[in-house]
């Protein structure tokens, strides 16, 4: 936020208004009075307002914070629409009280849903300081069979090679190769994986497969002996 007072509006001429502010009179019935400024600035101000008017009436998708059409739109779990930069600033202003500005429901950065219109790329906000908008979370369709794990592993990685050196095997192998996140055609950015339900689920699956594989290997060793 830089100063707004030192940056005059393009459409309203700056004006020394201290003397005028003191001569406010309650009897004046003008509810919407711009200061009597030079003619041209006044008309341009009016034009600006009509432009805004048309834009606003065009769409109901207005951000609840800036009151403009939402850019990089996100929606909270309570259903309230914001620009991502607006909501992000709000959440950073009150780190200890993360509430929806409209309904005061608890909200968090992890639990907002981005909205992608067909041409949403063109709406990208130029403000680069804002952290990236949270990504959408994809959930894979339910697997049909109970032993889905190995199938998908084989399918994606071109085969589960048992000829792997047993000596080099134990845990490093699983830590590096048994990474299900890499196999998913996921739109998620790496920095947002932690803590999501998807991530937890992957962790759980990895553990299950680790034990199944360990069992499988021991069976192989026993069978050979």
């Amino acid at each position: 936020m830089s100063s707004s007072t030192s940056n005059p509006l393009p459409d309203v001429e700056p004006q020394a208004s201290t003397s005028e502010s003191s001569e406010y009179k309650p009897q004046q019935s003008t509810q919407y009075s711009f200061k009597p400024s030079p003619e041209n600035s006044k008309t341009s101000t009016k034009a600006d307002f009509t432009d805004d008017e048309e834009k606003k009436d065009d769409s109901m998708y207005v951000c609840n914070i800036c009151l403009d059409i939402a850019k990089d739109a996100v929606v909270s779990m309570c259903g309230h629409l914001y620009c991502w930069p607006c909501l992000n600033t709000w959440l950073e202003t009150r780190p200890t009280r993360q509430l929806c500005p409209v309904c005061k429901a608890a909200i968090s950065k992890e639990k907002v849903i981005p909205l992608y219109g067909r041409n949403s790329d063109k709406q990208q906000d130029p403000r680069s300081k804002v952290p990236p908008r949270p990504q959408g979370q994809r959930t894979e369709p339910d697997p049909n069979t109970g032993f889905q794990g190995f199938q998908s592993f084989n399918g994606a990685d071109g085969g589960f090679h048992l000829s792997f050196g047993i000596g080099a095997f134990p845990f490093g192998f699983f830590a590096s190769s048994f990474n299900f996140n890499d196999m998913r055609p996921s739109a998620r950015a790496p920095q947002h994986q932690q803590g999501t339900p998807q991530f937890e689920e992957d962790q759980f699956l990895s553990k299950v497969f680790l034990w199944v594989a360990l069992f499988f290997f021991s069976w192989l060793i026993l069978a050979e002996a």
Partner: protein
Amino acid sequence: MANMAVSRIKREFKEVLRSEEIAQCSIKLELVNDCFTELRGEIAGPPDTPYEFGTFLLEIHVPETYPFNPPKVKFLTKIWHPNISSVTGAICLDILKDNWAAAMTLRTVLLSLQALLASPEPDDPQDAVVASQYKENFEMFCRTAKHWTNSYAKGPHKFPDFDTKIQRLKDMGVSEFDARAALSRHNWDLNRATEQLFS
């Protein structure tokens, strides 16, 4: 980002202009400067309250961080109310402090202040003297608040006995406001007010 405060205020003006309350002359909003940072609000005293038929002016300062932080608002019109300082006009209202939310607007602020006039919260006072009078001597509070509304906000109710006492103190060289404040604080007991003023 700095322009967000300005563009918000512009849009809010339209909201206030279109609102029913404007049509009912219940709230008003005006610009004081061209930077859209200083505004003047006006609310009508709510019906069936001591503030009825009064018109109360508010000074509104819009911070650069608006709407992420609340506007700074105070009463310019002197008012006798538990949650508003009778001396400075400072307001004790949660939405102007911790309970502010970025989706609130100047219109909702003005309406909230009007609601505050209708339902004071003496247990969370800004002016402790007014609050205790409200709780302990409600009838005296109502008369005093009506008198202030008449004196400062063009309210219709006159109280000749109050005016007489104020005049007595003015004759002693006390300013009208100081006389009114002292008498109001002491339930219009002239002796105690005099004591306070000259002690």
